[in-house]
């Protein structure tokens, strides 16, 4: 009797959890294919016309391009700079290294875009970085680098130094060793940090919202909020298809990560 009750309770709980988490997402699955998309979830009269609306919009595809530029630019800087720093910090005992690492960890969690939006906005203004992709890339890199260095240093610490030792014995210069021995060995770590950075930048709203004025330069996260019809109503055909297209890369990246590196994200993957 008690087990039966317990089973019923558990099943009810599971159903409620499923409903709670699925309900808001139903719209994303139905509206893009609905001939007459409404704000309410409904069984669609199936069509792909909404995607033509998307292709015809002058801002939609360009904003995705902008998102790619921001994500790729930030990932390039973060991966290269973090790899260099993490390697040096892992293998060379620089004075004050442990304090530096501790401070970096602390600072990156304290100084968030939300808490520091005022000085960041002013700094970008002073440096003439407002309305430039470079500005957003640099600001985001500065915020993501400490965590990236941490992830990569952990990774490098865990790889044995014997390959590097062997290369040195055979007369390779330090830089040769780095390029041909170290980079291939820590490649999975580099890929992980790269994907993590792309995921962070792809979804970020606040920094581009703050630092980019020109809608031609806005990434997908920001441009979504300009999709209104002439009547001032949200353009549902456009918003729904665009949301779907914008979300697909994140889901693909997640699937890639979970297949390649096991199912779990690293604990600090999301700030």
């Amino acid at each position, binding site marked *: 009797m008690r087990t039966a009750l317990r089973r019923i309770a558990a099943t009810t709980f599971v159903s409620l959890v499923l409903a709670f988490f699925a309900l*808001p997402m139903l719209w994303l699955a139905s509206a893009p294919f609905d001939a007459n998309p409404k704000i309410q979830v409904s069984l669609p009269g199936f069509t792909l016309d909404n995607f033509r609306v998307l292709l015809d919009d002058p801002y939609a595809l360009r904003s995705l391009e902008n998102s790619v530029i921001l994500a790729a630019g930030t990932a390039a800087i973060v991966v290269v700079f973090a790899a*260099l720093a993490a390697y040096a910090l892992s293998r060379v005992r*620089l004075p004050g290294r442990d304090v530096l690492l501790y401070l970096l960890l602390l600072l990156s969690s304290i100084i968030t875009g939300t808490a520091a939006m005022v*000085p960041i906005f002013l700094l970008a203004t002073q440096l003439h970085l407002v309305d430039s992709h470079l500005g957003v890339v640099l600001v985001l890199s500065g915020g993501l680098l400490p965590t990236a260095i941490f992830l990569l240093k952990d990774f490098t610490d865990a790889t044995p130094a014997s390959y590097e030792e062997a290369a040195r014995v055979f007369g390779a210069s330090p830089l040769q060793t780095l390029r041909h021995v170290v980079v291939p060995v820590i490649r999975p770590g580099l890929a992980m940090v790269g994907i993590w950075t792309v995921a962070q930048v792809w979804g970020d709203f606040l920094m581009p919202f703050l630092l980019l004025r020109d809608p031609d330069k806005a990434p997908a996260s920001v441009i*979504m909020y300009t999709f209104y019809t002439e009547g001032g109503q949200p353009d549902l055909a456009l918003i729904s298809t665009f949301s779907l297209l914008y979300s697909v890369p994140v889901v693909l990246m997640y699937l890639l990560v979970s297949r390649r590196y096991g199912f779990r994200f690293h604990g600090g993957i999301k700030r």
Partner: protein
Amino acid sequence: MVPATSTRTEAAREPVREEATDVVGLGRRRAAAFVAPALVLIVVFLVFPALWTLYLGVTDYRLTGLAATHPHFTGVRNYTDVLADGRFHNSLWLTLEFVGGSAVLGQTVLGFSVAWVMRERPAAVRRTVEALVLLAWILPGSVVAFLWLALLDRDGGTLNAMLGTPGTAWLLDHPMACIVVFNVWRGTAFSMMLYTAALGNVPPSHLETAKLAGASTWQTLRDAVLPKIRGHALTSLLLVSLWTFNDFTPFLITAGGPENRSEVMSAYVYRTALGEGRLGFGAAISLVMLLVNLLIAFAYLRALRRRRA
């Protein structure tokens, strides 16, 4: 370049490791050069803005007008103004509700419950639930914000259609409840994953013993499970609090309104500093936020160290 004394003490303390670690023969100079580019970006775009906040907070800096070009030193007036501002008290209280309700209570309780119940479910059920919960977490913030706007819409929203309450303006009548529930939905994944991993570390024999002794679920949780996961629970609580406190997504759903009734800190600082152009005043609020972050982060690092010890 490097102060000699510190080098010598450093070397004296760990002479062996020092020799052994730099296998490539990078040398200190080159190592420092490797760290420099990252450090420069971090200092300019992360550390400097935080320090600048201190200066900005004591000026009457504004976005436009005379004070934009020639800001004046105003001493601690911004800080006293902020601390005396009724809107600040309101925002502080709402933030407490938001963090306490959605992160500390909501995400943690729901995340743990899902992890606990899923242990004994068939793999297919478990994977479906986990996938949905994770999807809510990984979708871009702008997209999920719009999904919730659609769900809660007054005239055609799915929620009103389901509950048979047409015309109920959830976002106007209960803005805080909306963003709290939204954030539970958004962020439960992290707690779920963390407690799933933590529960995996509870020895099955403990649970068996509890079962044989006829312990109720509540007793089992309290006496067999909680002592094993207490460390995880504390660190995850602090981490989700930190993230929730700094989350800007509520702004995308209610924009702080109506009438400041959902103006949590992130929305408050944006609206005063960039909406109304009072940058000095906004910087003073920023400093308060940075201090709160500092407190949470210190508590987190202490808890982490105690767990490792």
